C-alpha cells in the first residue's frame, strides 16, 4: 500500500484536489448559476447536440410524412374551417381590443402585454435523469435569459421555467418536475397551487393543491397560471383537471392535472421575459 501511494500519490492527489475544487466552487454558486467547467462542457457539446437534434428531426419528419399523410390531410381541411372561424373572431376581437385600449387610457392602466418579450429557442437535449423532468435549450445569458423565466409553446401553453443559465444554453424544468411550484387559477377564478409530484410525474400529471375550503375543482376544468409572484405571467394554459380527490388529512380537495402541452413532441419553445418598466 505504501509503495502504491509512493508511485501513484501525485495522480490520486491531483484527482482529489480537482474534486475538492469543483465541490467548493459549486458551494459558492447561487441557484441557477453554473460553474465554468459545466459551461465549458456544454459549449463543447452544443454543436454535437445541434447536429444530433437535426438528424433526429429529419428522421422524425420522414416517419411522420410516411405514416401520417392521410391523417394530416384530414386535419388540414378541419383546420382550414377552424381558421375561417377564428378570422371572424379575430375581427370582433380587434374591435374589442381597440375599445380596451381606449378604456385603459381613460382609467390610466398600463397594458401588461407590453411588458412581455418572447425569445424563441430549440430543445437541444432531454435530461437523462429518471428523477426529474427537464431539458436543455440553445439560448442562454447571450439572449438575456434569466432564472425563473416562463417557457411556453406557440399556443401559450406553459412548458416550464428556466432553472439554470449558461452562456449559450439554459436548463428548463418542465411542469411535471417534482420541484415545480407555481400559482394556478381554476376556471372559476379561484387560485390554488400547482405543483409537481414524483409519483404523478410517472403518469405525466401534476397536482393542484391548497384549494381554498369550500371550493371543489371540476373535472376537465382548465387551469391557467395566476401570475402571482415569480416571473410567470398570468393566463398561460397549464392543463385540465383529470381527477378530484379529498386531501388525506382533511381540509378540502386536491386534484390531478393533465398538462395540455405534449412534452414528447416539443421542438421549438418560447421564453417569456417580463421586462422592467425602465427597459
Amino acid at each position: 500500500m505504501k509503495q502504491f501511494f509512493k508511485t501513484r500519490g501525485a495522480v490520486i492527489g491531483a484527482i482529489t484536489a480537482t474534486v475538492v475544487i469543483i465541490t467548493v466552487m459549486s458551494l459558492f454558486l447561487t441557484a441557477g448559476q453554473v460553474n465554468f467547467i459545466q459551461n465549458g462542457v456544454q459549449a463543447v457539446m452544443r454543436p454535437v447536440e445541434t447536429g444530433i437534434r437535426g438528424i433526429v428531426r429529419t428522421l422524425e419528419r420522414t416517419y411522420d410524412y410516411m405514416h401520417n399523410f392521410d391523417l394530416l390531410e384530414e386535419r388540414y381541411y378541419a383546420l382550414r374551417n377552424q381558421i375561417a372561424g377564428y378570422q371572424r373572431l379575430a375581427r370582433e376581437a380587434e374591435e374589442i381590443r381597440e375599445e380596451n385600449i381606449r378604456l385603459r387610457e381613460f382609467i390610466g392602466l398600463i397594458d401588461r402585454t407590453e411588458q412581455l418579450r418572447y425569445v424563441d429557442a430549440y430543445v437541444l437535449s432531454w435530461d437523462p435523469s429518471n428523477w426529474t423532468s427537464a431539458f436543455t435549450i440553445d439560448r442562454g445569458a447571450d439572449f438575456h435569459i434569466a432564472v425563473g423565466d416562463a417557457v411556453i409553446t406557440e399556443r401559450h401553453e406553459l412548458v416550464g421555467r428556466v432553472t439554470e443559465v449558461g452562456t449559450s444554453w439554459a436548463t428548463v424544468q418542465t411542469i411535471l418536475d417534482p420541484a415545480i411550484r407555481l400559482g394556478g387559477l381554476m376556471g372559476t377564478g379561484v387560485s390554488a397551487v400547482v405543483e409537481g409530484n414524483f409519483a404523478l410525474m410517472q403518469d405525466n400529471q401534476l397536482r393542484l393543491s391548497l384549494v381554498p375550503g369550500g371550493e371543489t375543482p371540476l373535472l376537465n376544468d382548465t387551469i391557467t397560471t395566476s401570475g402571482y409572484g415569480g416571473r410567470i405571467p398570468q393566463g398561460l394554459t397549464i392543463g385540465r383537471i383529470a381527477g378530484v380527490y379529498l386531501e388525506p388529512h382533511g381540509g378540502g380537495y386536491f386534484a390531478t392535472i393533465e398538462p395540455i402541452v405534449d412534452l414528447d413532441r416539443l421542438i421549438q419553445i418560447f421564453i417569456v421575459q417580463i421586462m422592467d418598466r425602465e427597459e
Partner: protein
Amino acid sequence: MSDSTKNRIIRVAGHAALLFVLYVLQTMIFSRLRLWDIAPLILPLAVVGVGLFEGPSWGGGFGLAAGVFSDTAFADTAVLFTLLLTALGMGIGLLSTYLLSRGFPSYLLCSALALMAVAIIQLFPFLVFDRVNPLALLRVAVLQTLYSMFFILPLYYLTRFMGKRARIAGSSQ
C-alpha cells in the same frame, strides 16, 4: 516523442473517445429511448470497468471526467456524480489492485452494486425531504438499475479491451 508519452496520449484519447460516445448515447439517445418511461445509466458502468481493468489512477481520472459530464447533463445534481463516480473509479481500482480478480463476475458484482448505490442516493432526498411514496421511488430505482444492467456486457468487453491494450502497450516498453 518517446514511446511512453505516445502511448499515454493514445490511451487518454481512447478514454476521451469512450466518454464522448457514452455521454452522447446517455444524454441524446437513451434520454429519448425510454423503456417504461425510464432511461438507463451507462456512464457508471464504464467507470467501474476502467477502475477494475486499469487501476485507481485511471479509474479515478475517468470517474472524475464522467462525473463532471454527468453533472452537466443532469439538472437535479450539482456535484453528486463528480463525487460519486470519482470515488467509484478510485475505489474499484484499489480493490482490483489488492482484492478483486479482473474478470466478469467481479465486474458484474461491482456494476450491480454501483447502479444500486446510485439509485439509492438519487431516491434518498425524495424519501426524506419530500416524503414521496416509497413504492413509487422503488419502482423507478429498480427499473433504472435493471435497464442499465442491459449494458453491462458490451461495456465489460469494451473496457476490458481498453485495459488489455493499455497493459500490452505498458509491457512492451
